[in-house]
């Protein structure tokens, strides 16, 4: 098996679901996953983790600022500066990498999350011909999880 399996992708999705459930006591719902190579549904703030070792590529979690503000409010955080919103998206990316580390073990080396505001919707240098796109819905907000990870051949 040279590519990501269904189970591998599920790990990332579950990590986000767990995060929302734990922080807000309200589960996030997941949309039907599809493939894309451009025009990704990017939102205001994006957390990125890159992977190496047996894998290559990156994982993006992109959320609109309104969603992050709501999330901070739910966490009783009053400071809703851009910086804090970036931190929040980075925190979610961090949770995903934590879960992934547990599951993939030493086969996947995962970077510290990078936090980017207003990432363009066309990503340069995808490692996969098509990346997986999964829309995560929480309350009435939509965030996106983009998995562009491939097992090295």
């Amino acid at each position, binding site marked *: 098996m040279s*590519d*990501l*399996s*269904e189970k591998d*992708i*599920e790990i990332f*999705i579950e990590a986000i679901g767990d995060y929302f459930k734990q922080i807000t006591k309200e589960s996030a*719902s*997941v*949309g*039907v*996953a*599809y*493939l*894309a190579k451009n025009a990704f549904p990017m939102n205001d703030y994006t957390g990125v983790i890159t992977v190496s070792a047996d894998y290559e590529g990156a994982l993006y979690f992109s959320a609109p600022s309104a969603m992050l503000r709501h999330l901070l409010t739910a966490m009783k955080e009053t400071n809703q500066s851009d910086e804090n919103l970036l931190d929040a998206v980075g925190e979610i990316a961090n949770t995903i990498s934590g879960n992934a580390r547990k599951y993939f073990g030493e086969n996947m080396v995962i970077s510290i999350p990078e936090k980017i505001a207003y990432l363009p919707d066309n990503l340069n240098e995808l490692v*996969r*011909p*098509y990346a*997986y*796109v*999964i*829309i995560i819905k929480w309350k009435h907000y939509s965030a996106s999880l983009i998995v562009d990870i491939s097992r*090295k*051949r």
Partner: protein
Amino acid sequence: MSSKSTLNKYLGIIFAVSLFLVFNLAVLGLNFYTSSTLHNDAVSINLSGRQRMLSQRTTKVLLTMQVDAAQGKLDPKNTAELKKVSSLFDTTLNGFKSGGTVVGGDERPVYLEKVSDGVAKHSVDEALRIWQPYKQLLVPVINSTYIDDIRLDMATDYAREHNLKLLKLMNDLTTQLEKNTKTKARNLQLIQTIAMVLSLLLFANIVFNALRKLRSADGEIEKAQRETTEILNTVKEGLILLDPQLSVGSQFSSSVSKILQHEITANMPFMPVLEQLVSAEIYASAKDYIELLFGNKVKESLMLSLNPLTEVKVQTKNDTTPRYLSFQFNRVVEEKRVLHLLVTVQDVTEQVTQAEELSKLKGQSSINLELLKKLLQVDTFQLRQFLNNAQTGLDALNVILANADKRAANQGELANQCFRIIHAIKGEAAAIGLEAIETQAHQFEENLVSLRKKTSWDAQEILSLPVMLSAMLDQIRQIETIVNVIQEYRQVNSSAYKPPTISTSVSNNLKRLAEQVCQNQNKNVELKLNLDLLDRMETKTAHQLQQIAIQLIRNGIYHGIETPSIRLAKGKSAHGEILISALMNPEGAIDFIVRDDGQGIVPSRIRTSMIASGRYSNEIVSQLSDKEIVGKLFEPGFSTADNPDKDAGRGVGMDLVQSLINEIGGDLKIDTKADVFTQFAFRLSKHAKPSINLNATEAVV
């Protein structure tokens, strides 16, 4: 070895020894008995000999008393002597007659057995006959206190007359007794000799068996030792036994010196050899590890993963390139004490380098040789057409996935759309022989089956769809790359290369498909094609017609054409026939016809299958008209196949045919007659509603 098996092993010897002991005890008993009888016989012989003497002494005393009486003397000593000897003679003789205690030679009482032998008995009886009157004559002589010449003379005369006779009788008795004893002794001797011989034989048997056992045991040990030596000489692995002082044991495999590149001898210390081989760091941890193994505190299985000497890199002065050695240590335990460590050394250089090469190879994109072979056989133009179609189809499928959440549309219908896309790809892949894609599509369909029944999708549940979609797109991309290379190569090498016409490639594809489905379903079908008109159509339309033909061939073979045996029973030829033609009518319109000579579409049979499938109740089925029943064939998910396989059973084929005809624009007409034929025909136009004629005649065509 258990005590029970030891007992079994020596059972023979134990039995023989017991028998020997019992036998010897019996011989001893016999000896005892013999000596006691011989003792009795000796007493008898001795006493009968004394009788001879007593008879003579009696006579002698009598004669002495007669001479004394002539001189007027009476010696009381003689009287006493006469009394004593005659009484002794008398009791002894009676003892011989009927047995009893008599005075023995040493004046002590002994038991005298009565004689049993005929001759001896006769002698005793005769002697008693003479003795009784003699004894009567002696009594007055013994009892007289004065010289009684008359009685003395009477006794003396009797003695003179019978003395010799009596002597002879006693002599006979003695001789006979001696003879008897001799015979008895001889018999006993014979028995004893036999017993001795038997006893010796038994003993010899024990000795022989014991020796044989010992020799075979020695032989086994010798054989085991020889085998051990042979094993140690031939085994490829280096085998060494280490004692707790870490010295090499007396036996080790001959290959060990070669593997370690060091002369190994018995009792030499092992650690210095290891120290020369490996780095100081590995040596230190190996030393700890070996000591830990002798410590017996940690389980061997746990220790395995700690072994620092696995695939360890070594390079001795004799090695031109580095080698890899693996050392394995196993405890030799006796009574919970580690006696030795069995060290197995293997040269794993080949495995390690092979693994390294393999992992290097893994980095390169591997090309499936089977796939490549197939691709070289298929016309690249057609292949490209297929790849384009597949890519378009899969892109459309991806759009369905991407929009699945956005639409309020029935997701069940989305599943059917996905099904049609995948089914078309599957059919075409099968037709051009791309088995890998056919299999992928078939698996995809399997994932869609459960989805079709649901009105809404659980995103996580259908995560397999984008994953499979990704895999199929990947496969198509790979094939595209290869096709590009092939096409480039062909263009460079043969400018004269002409791709086959569409009608030829479609015909080839359909023939290949029919062959494959026939093989799967164990049926025989001859495909008759007349598709030249395809070359005059738009490529897209020709391709759509191919797709329709693919589905109808599959259905025709699976559902229509009967097995050879059924066909023969119906009076048909064993070979079924499927005719596919594109014909132009006088008005210039094109009719596309697919006709098979199978069992026809029979509403009653469809009804039976519907009820048997358990998905339809008797009531619903009976309410439907025959046309409605046949119309069911076009409903997505409807199938009368018992076991869905690659060829049929998903209920997609006719749905796809209908949707393709809708795309082309046409009017499907089905003519069928039970057990005779089924014909699908449509004129390429803008209308699309199937019209069904269940009572067609051959004239229709």
